[in-house]
C-alpha cells in the first residue's frame, strides 16, 4: 500500500482543516494511506522538519507540505527527495520553487493584485484620494504576508519598493499597517488602531477573511456602514464568501485548497505508479491552482465571479 504524508502549517486554520479533508477523501478514493501532521502555530518550523523526517522514516512515497517558512524547510525537503520521496508544496511555494518537485498553489501575489485592481477600479477617480489601511499577518512578515500585501498595493497602482518588505512604501494614501495574527480579535484591534490614526479610512486590505470579519466589527463600532468602506480580503472560504454575499467583504480572492490537496494526492499516486512528476503551469514555476475574484460588484477589466458562484466553489 502506498503511503503519503500531508504536513500543514497548523491545525488551527480552517483552510488547512479543509485541505486535510480534501486530501483524506482523495487518498481514500485512490487507496492510499495518508498520514497527517501539523505545526502547533504558524511558523513552527521544527515541528514540520520533524514531520518530514518521520515521513522518511515511515517509508512514505511522497509528501504534501505547506511550508511554514519557505526558505527554512528547504534542507529537510531536499533530504526527503534524495530518499526518493516526491515532495509537493501546497499553498506556499518554496524559495526557489524548485526545492520541491512541484507546487500546487495560489499565486498569492496575483491574489493580492486582483483585489488591488478591483479596489482601484471600484473607486475610479476617487482612488487618488483613497485612505488605505493594511491589516497584515504578524510581525514576522512571512511570504504569504508580503506577497498578498505587495500584490494588493501593486494592483492598486502603488510603488511597493522592496517587495519582501512590508511598510516601506511612501505613498501618502497609505494610513498604516498593523498585524492581526490572522484572526478576528486581531483584525478588530488593528482596525481600531488604524482608525485612530485616520478615521476617514475607506479602503481596507486584510490578510484573510477572519481578519476582515474582525475589521468589519471595528468599522461598524466606529459608525461606518458597508457603503463607506471597501474591504478586500483573500481566501474564499465559505464563511468569507457568505460575508461577500452579505456585503461585508466587498471582494475576496478565492483559493482552492481542496483542489491543491486532491491534485497533490493524485500526483503522489502517479509517482508511485510510474515515477512521473506533475508539470508546472506554463510560464510559471508552479502549478497554479487558480484564484478567482469573488465579488457581487464586478468592475470592468477585472474578471470576477459572483458570490453565488463562489459559494459553490468555496474551498472546493
Amino acid at each position, binding site marked *: 500500500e502506498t503511503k503519503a504524508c500531508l504536513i500543514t502549517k497548523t491545525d488551527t486554520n480552517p483552510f488547512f482543516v479543509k485541505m486535510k479533508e480534501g486530501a483524506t477523501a482523495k487518498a481514500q478514493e485512490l487507496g492510499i494511506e495518508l498520514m497527517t501532521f501539523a505545526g502547533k502555530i504558524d511558523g513552527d518550523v521544527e515541528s514540520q522538519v520533524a514531520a518530514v523526517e518521520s515521513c522518511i522514516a515511515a517509508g512514505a512515497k511522497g509528501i504534501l507540505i505547506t511550508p511554514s517558512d519557505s526558505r527554512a524547510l528547504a534542507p529537510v525537503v531536499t533530504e526527503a527527495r534524495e530518499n526518493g520521496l516526491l515532495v509537493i508544496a501546497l499553498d506556499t511555494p518554496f524559495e526557489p520553487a524548485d526545492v520541491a518537485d512541484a507546487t500546487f498553489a495560489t499565486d498569492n501575489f496575483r491574489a493580492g493584485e486582483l483585489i488591488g485592481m478591483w479596489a482601484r477600479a471600484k473607486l475610479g477617480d476617487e482612488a487618488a484620494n483613497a485612505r488605505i489601511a493594511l491589516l497584515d499577518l504578524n*510581525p514576522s512578515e512571512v511570504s504569504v504576508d508580503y506577497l498578498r500585501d505587495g500584490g494588493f498595493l501593486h494592483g492598486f497602482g502603488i510603488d511597493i519598493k522592496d517587495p519582501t518588505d512590508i511598510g516601506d512604501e511612501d505613498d501618502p494614501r497609505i494610513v498604516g499597517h*498593523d498585524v492581526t495574527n490572522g484572526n478576528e480579535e486581531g483584525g478588530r484591534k488593528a482596525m481600531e*488602531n488604524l482608525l485612530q490614526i485616520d478615521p476617514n479610512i475607506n479602503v481596507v486590505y486584510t490578510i484573510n477573511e*477572519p481578519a476582515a470579519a474582525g475589521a468589519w466589527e471595528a468599522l461598524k463600532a466606529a459608525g461606518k456602514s458597508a457603503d463607506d468602506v471597501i474591504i478586500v480580503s483573500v481566501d474564499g472560504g465559505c464563511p468569507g464568501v457568505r460575508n461577500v454575499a452579505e456585503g461585508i467583504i466587498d471582494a475576496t480572492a478565492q483559493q482552492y485548497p481542496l483542489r491543491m490537496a486532491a491534485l497533490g494526492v493524485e500526483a503522489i499516486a502517479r509517482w508511485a505508479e510510474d515515477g512521473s512528476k506533475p508539470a508546472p503551469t506554463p510560464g510559471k514555476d508552479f502549478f497554479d491552482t487558480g484564484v478567482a475574484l469573488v465579488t457581487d460588484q464586478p468592475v470592468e477589466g477585472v474578471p470576477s465571479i459572483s458570490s453565488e458562484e463562489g459559494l459553490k466553489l468555496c474551498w472546493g
Partner: protein
Amino acid sequence: MNDVADRSPGATEAEAGLAGAASAVAEFQPRRRTLLDHIQHVLHNNPTLVPVIVLALSLVAFGIIAGERFFSPFNLSLIMQQVSIIGMLAAAQSLIILTAGIDLSVAAIMVLMSVVMGNLAVNMGVPTPIAIVAGFAGGAAAGLLNGVLITRVKLPPFITTLGTWNVFFALNLWLSGAQSIRSQDIDEKAPLLKFFGESIQLGGAKITFGVILMVLMFLALWYMLNHTAWGRHVYAVGDDPEAAELSGIRTERVLLSVYTLAGFLCALAGWAAIGRVGSISPQSFYEGNLQSITAVVIGGISLFGGRGSILGALFGALIVGVFQSGLRIAGVDVLWQVFAIGWLIIIAVAIDQWIRRVSA
C-alpha cells in the same frame, strides 16, 4: 494539685533583676530623610499608587508623543475596550497569583468556553442562556481540575497549568474544528452571546458593557478580598500556607475555591470576548496567558503571593493597553512595540521592588 495563682513565686535568680524594668519597647530616633526617601516612603505605604502613577505618566507621555488624537475620550474609551478581555483574565490571574500560584491556562479556558457557548447556542440550537450557563459550569470545572491537581496531587501550579493549557488547547481545536463562528450567525441565532458588545455613549466616549463588566469584576473582587473572611484567607494562604493552615484556615478549600472562581471568571471573560470580537474564534488570544501575567506583575502583585492589591492588575492591564495604543498611533513598528513592552515589564517591576525595599 497545688494552686499557684500568685505572681512569680519561683522566679529564677536572674529574674530578680526585672523588678522595675522599663516596660517600653526599644525605640529609636527617626532618621532624617531626603525627598526621594520621602517619596519612597509614601509609595511604600500605598503600593497601588505605583501603577497609578506609571499609568498617569504614560498617558502624559503618549499624549505628547502621539498628539491629541491619543487623548480623545473616544481613544481612551477604546483602550478600555481593547484591554477589557485581558483585564478580566488578569483579574482571574491575580486571584491565583495572590495565593502564590500561577495559571498558564486562563486564556485557554476562556477561548474553550466561548467555543462551548457558541457551539451549543449557534450550531446546536441550545437556548442561549443554557449555553451560557454551560460555559460557566465548564469554566468552573476547568478551574476546579487545576485546583484539584494542585491541592490533592500536590503538583506545582506552574506545571499543572502548563499541562492543562495543552489539554484545553487541544479540546478547543477539537470542539471548534478550527472554525470560527460568524458574527452574523450569532446575531441571528444567539444575539445574547454578544451582550457585552453593547455600549452606552458618554460624550465622545463609548463604554461597552464588557468594559463595565471588567470594572465591576475588579470592584467585586476587591471587596471580596478586603472585606470578607474568604479574602483575608486568600492573602493568608499566599503569604505563608503553613501558618495559614495552622492558624485555622482550610487552605485546600481556599485554593480550590480560588481556582474554581478563576475558571468561572475566565468563562465570563469568554462570554464577554464574543461581544468584543464579534465572532467566536478558536485561534484568538493565544498569548492571553502571558499577557494576563504581564498585567498582574506590572500592577505590582508579587509572584510570591500574599502581597498586592487586585486593583493593581487593572492598572497593569491599562498601562499595557496605553503603551500599545500610544506606540501604534505614534506610528511605531509592531516589533518595537514588543520591544517596549519587554522593557516596560522590567522597569515597572523594578520600580515596584525599589518601593517595597523600605521597611515601613
